[in-house]
């Protein structure tokens, strides 16, 4: 993917050789780009955000990318009422960073729960923790919520 981008970028920088220029650049069609990025996992999305400004702004601002990431492993899709709540509490990217990613990795490591598919309990737990996180930020005036520190501090993309 990166390779593809490089080649198209390279070609764009070289307008003097129109014959070499491909007919299609991924950056021309943001929707396709979005569809591709939607299917990435967390670390890859992080890497993708470092590629160029367009990709960076997409990953930062387009929360739907992260929504797909959050609920990818859930057996049944979450009800539509979830989205406004999550958005109000801080967005899917934050949900992923603060709750989903640590919970998933911790559950994956722990001996007790080895499922790859998320049960609704895990979803509920993540959402509850996310809500508590949002409330704590309000209480302490947007300082970093410490009640979720037990999940280990995530890196911020």
């Amino acid at each position: 993917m990166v390779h593809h981008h490089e080649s198209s970028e390279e070609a764009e920088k070289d307008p003097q050789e129109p014959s070499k220029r491909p007919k299609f650049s991924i950056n021309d069609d943001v929707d396709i780009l979005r569809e591709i990025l939607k299917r990435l996992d967390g670390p890859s999305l992080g890497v993708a955000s470092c590629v160029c400004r367009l990709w960076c702004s997409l990953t930062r601002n387009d929360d739907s990318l992260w929504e797909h990431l959050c609920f990818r492993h859930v057996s049944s899709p979450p009800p539509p009422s979830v989205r406004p709540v999550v958005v109000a509490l801080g967005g899917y990217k934050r949900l992923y960073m603060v709750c989903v990613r640590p919970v998933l990795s911790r559950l994956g490591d722990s001996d007790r729960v080895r499922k790859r598919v998320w049960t609704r309990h895990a979803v509920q737990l993540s959402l509850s923790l996310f809500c508590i996180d949002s409330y704590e930020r309000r209480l302490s005036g947007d300082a970093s919520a410490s009640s979720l520190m037990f999940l280990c501090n995530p890196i911020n993309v």
Partner: protein
Amino acid sequence: MKRDYPDNSKIGGGVKAECSSMSSGKMKMWEEELDGSGAMDELLAALGYKVRSSDMADVAQKLEKLEMVMATSQEEGISHLASDTVHYDPTDLHGWVQSMLTELDGSPNCLDPSALLANQQIGDNILPSAGSSVVSTGNFSNSQQQIGNLSTVYHDDSEYDLRAIPGKAVFPQSKTTDSENSPKRLKASPSTESVPSPATVPEQARPVVLVDSQENGVRLVHALMACAEAVQQNNLKLAEALVEHVGRLAASQAGAMRKVASCFAQALAHRIYGISQPSIDSALSDMLYMHFYESCPYLKFAHFTANQAILEAFATADRVHVIDFGLKQGMQWPALMQALALRPGGPPTFRLTGIGPPQPDNTDALQQVGWKLAQLAKTIGVQFEFRGFVCNSLVDLEPSLIEIRPGEAVAVNSVFELHELLARPGAIDKVLNTIKAVNPKIVTVVEQEANHNEALFLDRFTEALHYYSTMFDSLEGSSSSSGLSPAARQDVLMSELYLRRQICNVVACKGLERVERHETLSQWRGRMGSAGFEPVHLGSNAFKQASMLLAVFAGGDGYRVEENKGCLLLGWHTRPLIATSAWKFPAGEL
């Protein structure tokens, strides 16, 4: 303090001491008659030994030296001291020690284990920090019988005091498994202790290792127990000596053991000296509570399981009203509001009545919390209403004050609030009646799983020691396994302070002041049952959520969730520490 002096006229009767002070301030506590025969040290006089205050430093030095000499001469034996009845009056401590020293500096004779036992006991007795208070110090030859008997009773105290002499710490004893040394190690279970005649040497011989922190740990526990027993018997001087001893032993420990021991030693000291625990304002106590919330999963477990029970009870209600007996920072309610918001069929209207203590600076802390919760509710689309009640105690809450609207489902939630009511007779019944009067659909109760409300001080102390040791262990376990950020370390420290205050209350406070009157789940079951409440089983959802919460909790390997007749308990390894239960009042359901 009574002393038995069998038939030895040499040993003076009576405890006479001047109440002039030594360097330690505790002398003020005890005022006794002036003795015209010179300034005697009070503490030792209380133990029955007359020592001039001016000689004290000298005596202490000589005692140390004596200690060293006696220890080294263990294998060679100092039996001649036992058989030689012509000894100086041991109450004349100075002279006695001097005589012992001069004799021991010579060549010691052959070994006699029972004599060693006798000597050992005597050695114990002369030390200022000795625990045994009822020991014969008279005639050595015919006192062996008594000492033999006494060894069965006081095996707990004596040897620790020896070990505690600071000089010894630098002076390692050689490891020996000789049976001669076994009289010194009379600590083991009483069943092995039957020494009716001093002539029989106890067979088991334990190696004598001086600086062994595991042994010190066991000694520490024994010393704590001995001190508590002394407090119960109102033997305050003994207790004081033991408390200092505990402090010294605690310093040799590491980690959770040291913290627990120092907490309990401090609490015991408060009790002995009659110092009351300084009360802290509710802002500070809320802050400690928050740190405790963050550093370990107990409160989160409590909130999650209670919320699940409330959620299930409110499954079909359009209007819900929760009465929280201890609102504090309202940390329990965001998760419930979020779950209600995502409930199929949409959220109900949510009313919250929060109860809290009065603030010292008259700020309305409850309203501030209510406001923050309202903001959160608005963002997630839940209709929210808040009402705060300020009262000193839940007893002051009248059912008529709480506005119950028709058609709303009511839940009453109490996390660590009910046990305080047990301090006042009749309070708990009044509050339970208030609960019944609001006609709740569900009552969730979370309490510590321990019996810290026994009538006897010693029982309370023992229970509390076990409980808080486990608590501190769990804090230690969760803090050591992850690399801690400074904020997390602060959380752990504040949590320890939070627990320390509870310990101090259980151990040092009496009467109405002692509010940490924890009772076990079975006791609460009995209480709720006799008040007419019926248990509601916390379902498998609550169990799964709780298990998942713990699986996710860093450093949570030791935590265990158990289910017990529909109630959930969270514990550390095998010891349950908090219990969540849910109740309903069937008479209200019509």
